[in-house]
């Protein structure tokens, strides 16, 4: 059903190439199942609420990924870094998009669909940093049980450090969590009416001037995050 709210059997048959008798049977079935509404006075059909069950909810978050993909790829190419977008899946982070730089300076062996515990990943720390404090506390209570006491002491420190960094600078930087010398910068991506997500980029430290490099990359990643958010909100209202 393309642009018109109401359509008659004839128009549907013409558009789909399905014989009219079959169309009329299928339309009756779809009406019976709640996917269509039939107006007797007009002799036409329109979509009904059951169509929302065909995947609307599942994909509403996927449009963030679609919007982010191109922006992430040019970010990866421009800065010679690996970029990933992730959301929460239970007590794990799950990667929904990854972009490698064409110059391949930094390659992290992670693919789409990869899971990692929230507490043990820079992505998870950024996500936690983006949540309201009460929700963060609630998640932390559940996460704690998955780690040994000594491990938790260390991770807890990483998390509060990341939360502090995010509140001051908007991003959190760390080194060595994704392999020796690999530095990561992560930002929370919080979009109205969407599940919270996080963006991360990973790079090999090239020269001295380390903190300056962190700072530039961090600020640029924050800009990327704002652009993803703006474009998603625009797309959502279109």
């Amino acid at each position, binding site marked *: 059903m393309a642009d018109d709210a109401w359509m008659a059997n004839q128009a549907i048959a013409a558009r789909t190439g399905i014989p009219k008798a*079959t169309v009329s049977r299928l339309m009756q079935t779809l009406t019976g199942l709640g996917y269509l509404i039939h107006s007797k006075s007009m002799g036409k059909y329109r979509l009904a609420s059951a169509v929302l069950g065909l995947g609307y*909810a599942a994909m509403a978050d996927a449009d963030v990924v679609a919007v982010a993909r191109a922006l992430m790829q040019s970010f990866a190419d421009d800065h010679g870094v690996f970029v990933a977008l992730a959301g929460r899946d239970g007590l794990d982070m799950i990667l929904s998009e990854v972009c490698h730089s064409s110059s391949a300076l930094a390659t992290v062996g992670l693919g*789409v669909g990869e899971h990692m515990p929230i507490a043990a990943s820079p992505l998870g720390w950024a996500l936690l940093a983006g949540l309201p404090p009460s929700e963060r506390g609630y998640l932390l209570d559940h996460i704690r049980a998955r780690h040994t006491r000594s491990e938790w002491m260390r991770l807890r420190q990483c998390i509060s450090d990341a939360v502090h960094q995010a509140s001051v600078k908007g991003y959190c930087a760390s080194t060595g969590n994704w392999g020796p010398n690999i530095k990561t910068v992560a930002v929370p991506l919080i979009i109205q009416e969407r599940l919270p997500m996080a963006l991360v980029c990973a790079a090999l430290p090239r020269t001295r001037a380390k903190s300056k490099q962190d700072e530039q990359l961090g600020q640029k990643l924050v800009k990327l995050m704002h652009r993803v958010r703006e474009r998603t909100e625009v797309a959502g209202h279109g």
Partner: protein
Amino acid sequence: MADGDPTSTQTLQRALGVLKAFHGSPNPLTHAELVRRTGSSKASISRIAATLVALGYLDRAPDGVRFQLGARGLRIGHRYLVHNPVVRAAKPLMQQLADSCDMSVGLAVADQLEMVYLEYCNSSNIATLRLGVGRAVPMELSSIGRAYVWAQPPARRQRLLFNIMKRIGTNGPAVVARMETAFDDLDRDGYCMAVGEYQRDTFAVSVPVALGNPPLIMALNCSAVFYTMDLKRVRNVVVPSLKETGKRLSDALSRVDSMLF
């Protein structure tokens, strides 16, 4: 159907059944799980899934083995929502309620034995609740479903309860007994509540609403994660605001032809 070919409608129904087996969730399902959830044969699931992938209603999951919902359903859902007057009228009222109560507010319609969210507004302070527009929840386990069933004319209510019993099997009587407790609450107070039944760690209060002309029954709820629950506040603040929002929504739509919903 006596004449013509019955298989095209059967195929259509099976294909819709496969899509509905996901309950609107982005989580991938295996072939075996689809067989289990739909009751169709292995071979028929293979054929249907391949067709649905080709049409964009399903995708292969990143692991290359499982299936997940594809972008096509999103487009159809958009198309439906764009033309929907309920969503336009409901969104500002629901967002206002969500912000003032600091809870999520949902409006759901019935889809066979499930409730599907037509609109869903989060308070700006809540980020992690997982439901959204298009998500389906079982009628019998959610307060929003119970409020809907309660508001039905007696004959339809009985038919729904019968079908729910039939679907659930051995656990049916216990589930229906819990629904009837909710009906008692609705008789007495005009709302019902569910705590941690469908979604662990969340609670919800729901009221039925009759929208448009002729009136069509839907249900409206407020929900939040469990740790924020304060029963006294729910009773004295949240429920009255929820009822008020329901009333304002039905006033706003009282002259709108409910065939447009």
